Structure formats: C-alpha cells, structure tokens
C-alpha cells in the first residue's frame, strides 16, 4: 500500500518536472502558430526557420565559445586548487576550500553586480572592455567548483598510495603524473568539465551583467525574443535544442563519474 503511494508521488513529481519540458519539445513541431493544444498538425518548418535564423546561430556559437572558455579555466584552476587542498597542509586551507565552493551558492545577481562593477572600475580602465572574455571569466567563477569537487573527491578516495607505489617502482614525478595520477583523474576531469560546460551554457543572470555590447549567448537571445509573438515558434525550437544540449553532458558526466558527480547550480 505505502509502496504504491510512494510510487504515485514519485510519478507525479517526475511528471511535474518533465511534462513542461516535453511540451516544449512537442510544440517545436506544432503546426499551429499559437500552439493550440492538442496539436493539430505536425511541421518541421520552425526547425528550418530556426536554422536559418542568423541571430540564433550566432548566439549558439557565442554560448559554445563561452562554455568552452569557462570550462578550460575551470579545469585548470579547479584541478590546481583541489591538489593544493588535498595534498598539502597550509594556513587557511579550509577557508580556501570554502571560498571556491561559495560562488555556486551566491545568488547569481550578486555575482553579476559585483563582476559588473569590478570590470567597469578596475579592468576596463586597463584597456580591456567587456566582451566575450568577461562572460567567460564570470562563468568560470562558478564553474571552477564542479571541477574542484570532482577532482577533490577522486583524490580523497584514491589517496597517495598509488603515487607512492609508482615512485617506489622507480617512476619520476613526471612519469607518475603521466601514468598514474592523470589516468586516475581523467574521468573526474571529464565529469567536472561536462558539468561546468552545462552550467555555463544555460547561465543567464551573470551573463547579463558581464556581456559586452553585441555579445549574446543563447539563453539571452531566447529571453530577448521570448515576448515577440512572431519569434515564439523559433524560440521554442531553440529551447528544445538547449534541452538536448544540456541533458547530454550531464548524462555523460553521470555515466563517467558514477554517483559522486559534483554540484549543480540550481
């Protein structure tokens, strides 16, 4: 009896989360411009319209670049911090760990405002105005944590035994990193990187505050076109693409990292 109630509750919960997403996917093929429900006829014209839409394509490309950039920074910094925190003892170690994790919990709007004013008052006078790079830096602030968490968990679990064994067998530190440490971290890096990319890809708040003129990521493009009635079908298609593109890396990340995969932003 309890079992059936629990199952029903779970089904309802999952339905509540995924039905609207499914609706977006279905509507992207809905022949009716005002999305009458149930759909009367099936069409792919919105998909081809979206494909021809230069704004959407530019925005997609910008998002990919921003995501890759933020992921690259996150991989390097996240790994380095994880090593520092896990392998060395130093003053303020716990504080550093907290400071790295904090941006994921900070409201995006606060991060956004802070980055905006910092960029305008400190970086811009140095000759580097806001543009794609500022978006990448903004995203990296909260992407670092996904890599950090994944790498830290891996380092914690595997300990230093394997590296000691490698050194004991005659491997130099460089050989140990190449043959033992890196392969050990590979799946954690992949999982952390994929999550970082997914986080960056659908970010809108921090992006709004850090994007320079003319820089439009996909989520921002959607937001700007959402309330233009004649763009609505195309927005639907783009949203559908976003769903697929976001699900993919997260699904992959879960598969490579197993259950300990790191934090998500929402």
């Amino acid at each position, binding site marked *: 009896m309890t079992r059936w109630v629990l199952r029903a509750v779970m089904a309802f919960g999952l339905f509540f989360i995924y039905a609207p997403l499914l609706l977006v996917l279905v509507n992207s093929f809905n022949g009716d411009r005002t999305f009458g429900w149930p759909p009367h006829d099936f069409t792919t014209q919105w998909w081809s319209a979206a494909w021809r839409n230069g704004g959407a394509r530019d925005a997609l490309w910008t998002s990919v670049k921003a995501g890759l950039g933020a992921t690259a920074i996150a991989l390097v910094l996240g790994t380095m911090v994880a090593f520092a925190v896990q392998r060395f003892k130093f003053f303020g170690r716990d504080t550093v760990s907290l400071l790295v994790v904090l941006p994921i919990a900070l409201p995006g709007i606060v991060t956004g405002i802070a980055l905006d004013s910092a960029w305008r008052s400190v970086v811009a006078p140095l000759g580097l105005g806001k543009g794609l790079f500022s978006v990448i830096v903004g995203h990296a602030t909260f992407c670092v944590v996904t890599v950090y968490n994944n790498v830290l968990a891996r380092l914690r679990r595997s300990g230093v*035994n394997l590296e*000691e064994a490698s*050194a*004991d*067998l*005659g491997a130099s530190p460089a050989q140990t990193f190449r*043959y033992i440490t890196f392969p050990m971290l590979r799946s954690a890096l992949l999982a952390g990187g994929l999550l970082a990319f997914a986080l960056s890809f659908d970010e809108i708040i921090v992006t709004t505050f850090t994007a320079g003129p003319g820089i439009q990521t996909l989520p921002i493009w959607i937001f700007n076109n959402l309330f233009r009635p004649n763009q609505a079908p195309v927005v639907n298609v783009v949203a559908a693409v976003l769903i697929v593109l976001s699900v993919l890396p997260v699904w992959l990340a879960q598969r490579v990292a197993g259950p300990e995969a790191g934090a998500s932003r929402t």
Partner: protein
Amino acid sequence: MRTPAIHLSGLRKSFGAVEAVAGIDLEIDDGEFFSMLGPSGSGKTTVLRLIAGFDRPTAGTVSLSGREVTKLPPYERDVNTVFQDYALFPHLSVIENVEYGLKVRKVPRKQRRERAEQALAAVRLADFGARRPRAMSGGQRQRVALARALVNRPKVLLLDEPLGALDLKLREQMQVELKQIQRDVGITFVFVTHDQDEALTMSDRVAVFEAGRIAQVGTPEEVYERPASPFVAGFVGTSNLLTGAAARTVVGRDGTFSVRPEKITIGAEGAPGTVSEVIYAGPVTRFVVDLDAGARMVVVEQNRRAGKAQRGDRVQLTWQQEHVIEIGGDRAA
C-alpha cells in the same frame, strides 16, 4: 666483513610533537629475512617508510649496500615495497602492473613483457595477466604485488604487513610461499608485522619494536627464549612474569622471571594455586592459574588425556629449572 644490505644509524622521525622513531641503529645483512615486530604505533612501519624513502628522517642516516641514500627520493633507491593494501594500479591490467617498474626504467617492450610473464609465473599467476586487479581475490592481488616488486630485482624488498588482509588459512600458506620465494631469489626481505607467530616462523632475525625503539634484536629463538625485557617477553608469546614476592617464593630469589606456558606442567608437587579459567582450543587447553604466591600463570597442555583440571580446582605447577628465564639477565636462574 661484508657490507650490510641496510644500515640505519641514529634514525629518528618526529611527526609534530610525536616521536615515531626515537633513535634506531640497525644492520640488516644481505639475503636476510628480517622481521620488524611490534604493536601498532611502535614505529616499525615508519622505519620501513624511511628505508623506502617516502618520508625523510628528522635525524640519522639510511644506507643501502654501503651507499648513503638518506636524501634520495624513493625512485632513486634500489628497494621495492609490497604495500599493506597492495596499491595495485586499478586502471592497468595485471601484466601492466607487473611490468610498470620496467617500463618507467625504459626496458624495451619485448624484454619487459617477458620478464613480467616470468614474474607472474613465479607467483603462480601465469594465466591472469589480462585481468584487472579488481577481478582478483585478496590472495591473488597479494601475489601480483609481490611479482610487481620482484620483477625489478631489487637489492631489498620491503613488506608492510602484506598478509594482514588475508584470512588465516591463506595467511599460513603465504607465509610458507614467501619464505620459499625469498630463499629462491636470495633478496633481502624486511618484513613488518604485528603478528609474533608470523615473525617467529619466517625470519632469520627479528627486531622487537617498542615505542619507537628497538627493544631487542635476535634470532626467533633468542627473542623467544631469552627476552631482553618484560615487554619483549610479553609481546613475543605469553610471558608469565614472576616478580617481587612471587619471585622470592617460587624461584627463591629477587628478580624478574618468566616461564613459557608450554614449559609448565600441572602435577602433584610444585607451586600451589587455583585454576581460574580453562580455555579449550582444539589441540591444546589453556589453564589460567592464580598462584598462592601472587602471580597469574598461563599453562598450555596438549589434549592427550582425559580428566583435566576444572575451574576452581586446587593444582600445583612445576617446571624445570632451565626453563626459568631471568629477564634482562642470563638464561637459567
């Protein structure tokens, strides 16, 4: 005189305020099976790590075959280690694990594969090369770890409680195998254990560790029959200490004495006492006897006859004079 395989001189190691190794001088001969025996926290594993080079001593030196290596990193020392948890590389197959040491030393591929296969065959795992360590039992992993270390033909093999994770049967079997392998390859083995039986059965010599120092070094027989301190007597076997008044009454003079349980017989004459515990253990029975003179003695008798003493019985204990060990002194009292 031959150069010892390992020479430790004035070795000390502190971790913060804790002195894990508090001054050790030791020579281990070439080809010796040497055990470091002691309770956990007595510093034996730390000494092993200092020899391997994972830790640097606070003071003192480590020499291998006459060459001082105190400041050298592990990968520049001609020793290999079999770790307690084996530390096999999970992402490499068994054969890749075994040839790892040869690979990082740039031994040509064909040659290293050959040697790795020989090493696997030597530990009777010839057909297991393609497996992952995960897919093997504890005893098999242990042998892979052994092959991975021996394939490099080190001068010294360090073993850190390598049998600790195995069940009793497998343990006893591996003890025999290890000893055979050591005899075959003729490499110096330094074997860390907290198990006195293991140390006594396998070793040429044993060092008993107590609180970061060596309490006694000697052959298993010396350590067992002539313990240098009450600690050694108690850690290696059951000590049955007689001190103070009990020593005066039972032995007839002052001092600290010990009689091993298997040397005592329950008979019709001797020191009187009361049986306080009877523990049946298959081939033998252990009796705990409280002597009237004020000492508690453990007696081990083989289960050859019926009609054993019962709990609460009054008994008398006898032993031969030559089996009374005076601790810290000469053998017979």
